[in-house]
């Protein structure tokens, strides 16, 4: 079994009466690219800062490779942080910034200098080693921040939305670079983001956090395809939530009645119960068919052109609107505005959620 790098045990963080994190438990594995994903204000950054040592925790424990670090100050924790605003020391050049942590650890100038050169080479900044941070572009500053945090070979690297200040093209390039560096160095990465695409493309595992609680932990595919509740389904990617009447949940399968009366059986999330519930179906898993062949019937109300895809919005008889994603290829039938259509999806494509 893989070793646990960071073990957060029943951790609670309060600011006065406000509960920022409520009874959070997470086990982050050695050599893992782990992402904390959630909307702003959900507590993901607080959790990261608690691991770094910038926030005291109210209850619980934080263990780093088995050792409780909750009471250690930041400078005694073998973890380093890439800050959202980079926080490069403006009065030091790139090399001095990268060497800072090494010198504080007691390395001599020569050893620290050699390691700094090595790390700067890894992030392809060798030629900028003598520049001041103010003489670098945003992307370069971001890489210096990464190099500075990697130089002391931390046991865990914490990244606090490091890509949010970069423009789209650069962000995509840096994503791959980060993933590569994580694999090359073998350092455990804990990455905080509110960008679900970032989380899905980079992470080994994702923890979705909302309102100070962990909603779901799992690999990208599991989070996307088997969300446990309405929040996760809605937050990760786009989804259609269909109101259904659940008559029975058994062995992980739910039998329910769709709007319009059709009976349907599909997998249910753990904790789903009979009664009124929601089915989640991703737009790309819904197909347009003839009205009589569909599980649901409705009329198209809007078409949105998205380049590679086409979104068709369909209004059901009860007023609910579902979105269907069609690939923009030759031979795809795009129904006319207002046409009566049927909607179909497979058993495996739908999932009954916990509300």
């Amino acid at each position: 079994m893989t070793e646990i790098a960071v073990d957060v045990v029943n951790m609670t963080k309060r600011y006065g009466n406000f509960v920022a994190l409520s009874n959070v438990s997470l086990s982050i594995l050695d050599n893992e690219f782990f992402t904390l994903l959630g909307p702003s204000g959900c507590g993901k950054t607080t959790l990261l800062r608690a691991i770094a040592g910038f926030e005291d925790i109210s209850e619980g424990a934080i263990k780093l490779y088995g050792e409780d670090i909750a009471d250690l100050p930041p400078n005694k924790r073998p973890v380093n942080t890439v800050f959202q605003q980079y926080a490069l020391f403006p009065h030091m050049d790139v090399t001095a910034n990268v060497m800072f942590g090494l010198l504080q650890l007691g390395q001599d100038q020569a050893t620290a200098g050699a390691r700094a050169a090595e790390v700067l080479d890894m992030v392809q900044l060798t030629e900028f080693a003598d520049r001041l941070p103010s003489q670098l572009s945003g992307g370069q500053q971001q890489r210096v921040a990464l190099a500075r945090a990697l130089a002391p070979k931390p046991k865990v690297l914490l990244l606090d939305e490091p890509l949010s200040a970069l423009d789209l093209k650069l962000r995509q390039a840096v994503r791959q670079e980060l993933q590569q560096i994580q694999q090359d160095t073998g350092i455990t990465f804990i990455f905080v983001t509110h960008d679900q695409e970032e989380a899905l493309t980079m992470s080994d595992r994702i923890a979705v956090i909302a309102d100070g609680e962990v909603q779901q932990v799992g690999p990208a595919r599991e989070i996307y395809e088997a969300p446990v509740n309405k929040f996760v389904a809605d937050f990760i990617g786009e989804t259609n939530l269909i109101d259904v009447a659940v008559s029975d949940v058994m062995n992980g399968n739910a039998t329910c009645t769709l709007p319009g009366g059709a009976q349907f059986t599909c997998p249910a999330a753990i904790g789903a119960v009979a009664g009124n519930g929601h089915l989640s179906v991703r737009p790309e898993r819904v197909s347009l068919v003839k009205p009589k062949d569909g599980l649901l019937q409705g009329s198209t109300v809007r078409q949105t052109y998205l380049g590679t895809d086409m979104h068709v919005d369909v209004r059901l008889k009860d007023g609910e609107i579902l979105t269907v994603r069609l690939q923009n290829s030759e031979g795809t039938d795009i129904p006319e505005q207002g046409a009566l259509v049927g909607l179909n999806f497979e058993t495996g494509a739908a999932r009954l959620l916990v509300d």
Partner: protein
Amino acid sequence: MAKKLDLRRFPGFLPLTFLCLFLLYAPLIIVMVYSFNDSNSITNWGGLSLRWYVEVFTGVESEKFKSAAINSISIAIMAAIISTSIATLAATAMLKAGNFRGKSVGFALINLPLMVPEIVTAVATLIFFSAIGFTTGYLTILVAHIVFCIPFAYLPIAARMQGIEDVYEQAAMDLYATRFQTFRLILLPLMTPGIISGFLLAFIISLDDFIITNFVKGAGIETLPTAIFGSVKQGIKPNIMAISTLLLLVSVVFVTLSYLVGRMGQNKKVTTD
């Protein structure tokens, strides 16, 4: 689009402006011009000359001015160094040490001397010194100067410190620096422009002070301002204008330096956006 409150459109703007400028600067200009007067009179122009400057350095009063200048400058340097050090620590505590009990009281205590009438401080300081049996002299001037220079040194340092975001200290701590190393390696260098600015301001305030100095100096010791005042009491001679002009020059140089250092600091980015 015109600015909403363009003062230039107010009635009487121009005459009022010139009146203010005249009242502020005409006396200074007259003193400067007449310091180069070749006449013994302080009002009649007798041609251009440097004789009163020569008089300052070699005349009958030159010894008195020389020792007064040495006192003034040595006190100003020491008072500026000590008050700047205290102000730096005070600013660090006020702005970077988080919240603590008595913080607002501390803030008021640091800045209150700016609001207390100087004559009150002067009297109080003199009474204090005599109450504890301190002989007035060089040391009492120095102590009094250190005290009233602190708020002047504090202001530019605190202003600078306010612009340094906490994330730099967090980054340093994250990179294994202790609190003291963080202060020495990160905070102090980033604050340097503010500290220099505060030092220069404190220096000038100490150099120029008359009221408090006059109260606490005791007999037989003079600073430049008290020496000048002493001479003026026996009638204004042109050499006073020369020495005043020299003092003005020193002030202008230091204030300009202080301004330039402050601006130099602003060009370097300390914020992270």
